């Protein structure tokens, strides 16, 4: 199997690795680099639990061709916290019981971050739309939506 060397920036740190021809970004992150925060779900772009940001835009790692990403910047849920300080979204998910089994949580966090990056004042329906590509089979979604709206409030207070 031909392998291609790529260098990308993962959560602010430059990383170099070999990827196999046709390999997806999710495998490259989990097996190649060891970032286990994006989860393996459907491998067909349906469940959203592998959601990451590529150059600041939300993408699904399982259907992103890894060898196309040389020089690109990848952000995963594993890169949200700053040291021991959780990201407001992570803290809000904890405080508002937005995770039960937790398998969807990394993807939900990245979908929510992508929303709040461009829209700090989302309406409830905009949150629903933002996470519409992410499946959760535990919570019924309402606690997740509440958590994202409360995190947005916290983030707005911090930037005042």
């Amino acid at each position, binding site marked *: 199997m*031909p392998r291609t060397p790529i260098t990308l920036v993962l959560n602010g740190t430059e990383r170099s690795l070999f990827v196999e021809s046709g390999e*997806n970004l999710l495998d490259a992150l989990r097996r190649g680099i060891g970032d286990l925060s994006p989860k393996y779900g459907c491998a*067909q*772009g349906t469940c959203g639990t592998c959601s990451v940001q590529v150059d600041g835009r*939300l993408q*699904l790692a399982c*259907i992103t061709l890894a060898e196309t990403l040389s020089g690109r910047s990848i952000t995963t849920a594993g890169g949200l916290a700053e040291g021991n300080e959780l990201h407001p979204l992570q803290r809000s998910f904890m405080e508002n019981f937005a995770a039960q089994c937790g398998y969807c949580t990394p993807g939900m966090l990245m*979908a929510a971050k992508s929303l709040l990056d461009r829209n700090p004042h989302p309406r409830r329906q905009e949150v629903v*739309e933002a996470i*519409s590509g992410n499946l959760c089979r535990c919570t019924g979604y309402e606690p997740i939506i509440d958590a994202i709206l409360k995190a947005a409030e916290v983030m707005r207070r911090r930037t005042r």
Partner: protein
Amino acid sequence: MITVDTYSSLDEAASGMDSHSCFMGGGTLIMRDLNYGRQAFRRLVRCTDPQLRTIRNERGRIVIGAAATMSDVIENRDLEFLAPVAAAVGGPAIRNMATVGGNLFAPAPFGDFATALLALDARIRMSSGQETGMAALLSSRQDSRSIVTAIDIAPPPRGRFRFHKVSRVKPKGVSVLSICAVLPMNGGRLSGVRVAFNGMGSTPLRAPAAEAALEGKPLDRNGIGPALEVVLQDLQPVDDELATAWYRRTVAPVYLRRLLLERSRAW
């Protein structure tokens, strides 16, 4: 074993296509096949030419680069009428990846955007330099070795484009069926109507009998009646995991009636 060949120019990419190759747009469907080892190709051909992603206005017509994503469409002011169609494709992550060109090759139940392009009578520009219509492309897309470079459309008259997607999962799910209609009016009567369905055959299909029945009629309950009676003539729904052909035949006229009469769905 798969090889991936990436070219910086369209000419090089086009010359790199052979009978074992598949051109990759956003990869949202091709990568699924790769992940599950069910791809029918040995080579993936990509092109990074930024021209392929531009959306531009050419003398009143809008030319959408084949590599423009659904998000690009949503963010483009000239394409406001197509934004609801692009927004119906997947969730936000998929829309950042899925391309307009890729949607032309998406098998049912995907292909809602291609259905809109069929209703809009889009012209498809190919790497061979030729231009083709949507119906011709859809009927030969499995055998195409030429690369789609851009889609050329005339914007519909303001407020005369309508789209509705029927899905079981809310807010996002694949189409049981979707309908697009361009409904120009002349002197209070329909003139130059085009109606296209997705999910009612193996590719998006026009409904010429319904179009003919709408021609010259007012857009009201009485005017659309004959079209609802003949709309199924041109549709070929099949049973699949989303719905039976019977269900699709039963609801298609209902959704067409709603689409035609509900003004809130017009762009």
